[in-house]
């Protein structure tokens, strides 16, 4: 029996060692956590489904194929009242992407300018930048949105009048009316010529940099590139017999009052809701980006710009070649946050009737009553968009990160 005792004890010793092994413990707890999480998620989903069934509420995503039946004022893809709910949501999604994408672009440019201006040695410029940042950051975005939207609406001529700029831009309360390009056969070739021009310009730019590094002389790569981007499509355009024409907006100031103004179906209209939202989002986010940029520039040691100056670089050159490249390492991570914020804030669109995903989804939700499904679609979309933005920004961040040797 003694041998058996020893065996049992040594087995117990081995088991204790196994349990006390930190690696094993870590694994066990992690597996247990994942199992608990999956069980929790499954339980919620299952409970929801059963409760919905018990309350006689229809469930599932089948409604996406049904006819939507309502109109949407701005659509980037074909959409009519006879299209499906799924299509309507696509229209809303694209509208969100449009305003978020353009908003990010404008906010970045403006934010960099203001951020640099705030550090300017010119008293007036730096104070103006400070005032801008402090005012815009400290007023709630929704109020700014209403301000810009109704400011836009109240400051432009009514539906039966217009302001005209440069002969082709017409503005009234219905929005910005511009000629709409009409693409005939061969328009695709012009588009290809444009893409070829851009690629060629990029190659010329790279060649120019290499040559400058090798010989010290900078060829006019910028001008050549610009000529390629403009020239190639122009040549293609005329060679193919002008395949792109323009549909000019028709303005009628005769007849019954309701028929006056810009005629539906002529030209292209950018609605004021879009301008209001774009303005509010980009001006608001630019204030935050400006602070990020200022912090990034301040983080670059003073010795860096002093060294650059003593090498004979001018202020602008110092900023461009020495300070900003180093500041980007500090700027990019918080900049990502601002991009995510702007995208998520675009869901305020519904307050000023811009048909984004939340607005269109709200109508779909009300018509179908599929609240759980609709909210899940919203969440998945915004989550996906945020993760995608983070991914792109992280790749960029890795490219500018300090390479240590």
């Amino acid at each position: 029996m003694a041998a058996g005792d020893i065996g049992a004890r040594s087995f117990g010793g081995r088991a204790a060692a196994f349990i006390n092994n930190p690696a094993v413990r870590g694994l066990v707890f992690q597996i247990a956590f994942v199992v608990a999480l999956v069980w929790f998620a499954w339980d919620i989903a299952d409970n929801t489904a059963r409760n919905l069934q018990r309350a006689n509420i229809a469930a599932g995503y089948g409604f996406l194929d049904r006819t939507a039946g309502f109109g949407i004022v701005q659509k980037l893809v074909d959409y009519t009242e006879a299209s499906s709910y799924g299509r309507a949501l696509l229209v809303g999604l694209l509208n969100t992407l449009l305003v978020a994408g353009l908003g990010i672009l404008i906010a970045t440019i403006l934010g960099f300018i203001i951020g640099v201006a705030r550090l300017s040695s010119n008293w007036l410029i730096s104070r103006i930048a400070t005032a801008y940042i402090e005012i815009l950051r400290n007023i709630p975005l929704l109020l700014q949105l209403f301000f810009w939207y109704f400011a836009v609406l109240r400051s432009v001529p009514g539906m039966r009048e217009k302001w005209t700029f440069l002969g082709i831009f017409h503005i009234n309360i219905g929005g910005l009316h511009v000629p709409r390009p009409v693409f005939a056969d061969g328009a695709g070739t012009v588009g290809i010529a444009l893409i070829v021009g851009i690629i060629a310009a990029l190659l010329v730019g790279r060649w120019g940099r290499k040559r400058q590094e090798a010989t010290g002389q900078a060829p006019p790569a910028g001008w050549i590139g610009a000529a390629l981007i403009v020239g190639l499509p122009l040549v293609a355009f005329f060679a193919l017999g002008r395949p792109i024409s323009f549909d000019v907006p028709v303005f009628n100031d005769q007849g019954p009052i309701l028929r006056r103004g810009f005629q539906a179906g002529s030209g292209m209209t950018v609605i004021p809701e879009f301008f209001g939202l774009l303005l509010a989002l980009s001006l608001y986010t630019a204030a935050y980006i400006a602070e990020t940029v200022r912090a990034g520039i301040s983080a670059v040691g003073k010795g860096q710009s002093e060294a650059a100056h003593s090498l004979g670089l001018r202020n602008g050159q110092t900023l461009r070649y020495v300070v900003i490249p180093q500041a980007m390492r500090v700027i990019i991570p918080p900049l990502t946050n601002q991009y995510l914020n702007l995208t998520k804030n675009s869901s305020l669109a519904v307050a000023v009737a811009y048909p984004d995903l939340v607005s269109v989804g709200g109508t779909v939700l009300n018509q179908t009553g599929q609240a759980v499904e609709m909210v899940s679609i919203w969440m998945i979309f915004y989550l996906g968009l945020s993760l995608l933005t983070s991914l792109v920004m992280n790749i960029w961040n890795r490219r500018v990160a300090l390479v240590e040797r």
Partner: protein
Amino acid sequence: MKKLIASIIAGAALATAGISAASAGTLEDVKAKGFVQCGVNPSLIGFGIADEKGEWSGLDVSFCRAVASAIFGDPTKVKFSPLNAKERFTALQSGEVDLLSRNTTWTMSRDSSLGLMFVGVNYYDGQGFMVRKSLGVSSALELSGAKVCTQTGTTTELNLADYFRSHNMPYEVVAFEKNEEVLQAYEAGRCDAYTTDASGLYAERLKLTNPDDHMILPEIISKEPLGPAVRQGDDKWFTVVKWTLFALINAEELGLTKANIDEKKTSDNPEIKRFVGVEGDFGTGIGLTNDWAYNVIKGVGNYGEIFDANVGPSTKLGIARGLNNLWSKGGIQYAPPIR
């Protein structure tokens, strides 16, 4: 955003808590907690609105009070939940409110896929258009090419699309989340027309700077029977709310008012005797006291009184009875008898 969060929370409550309220019996729950939780419109003059002192009034609000009177004999035993168009159904489904009395249109899809039960119709409405008089338009059929402002998340967007499509008229819809912004945009001239339920148009017109510069077109483009709704699966509660509505209409037909109900209690008319609970056991049959209908009229008055006090010709809204008159007076308000 606030609404979105509210609806998500309501959805989450629905997901985790279940429909416990429905299964326990809403009437018992209401009696136990001592008040009716009623979902109403926060900002529609004549139907549901709170004044600066937080005092609620309106046709739909009065209905909530009528239900409280039927149960407790006290019209003040109500708590109001202001709800917007988007969050109202989730609030009812999740048990956040016991009763939804918020100018809500009774449609088949709401019965079939939202788990709701409409108890009847307390206001026969229809969708209309408001335009500037200066537009020179006298009919909705002349609105071809018009830009139309409305509120998102309601049936109006669908009716609007149906109407313009069926008449082959182009249009453009600008849909806002809230009434306030719809009105501001319309007033700023963003739209030629403002569309919503006709009753709502009368109410919104009063908020404009110069109400007289605007007119409501005669066309009614949809049927909007507005009524209170409860959750499916609780027949007892459904019956109580339904008969409260019928009591209001029957009282008007019998000539019972808030003022004369006490003296009518001794009436010889058998119909009135049954109504006030002197004869029969109608109240206990639905889980209330026998003087439930008496309490309703004593608390809030009959349907006609409620209508006149909130939306009728003598109010700012000045809406004629029209379809909402009793069936015996040229309208279509009709209630099954108490017997």
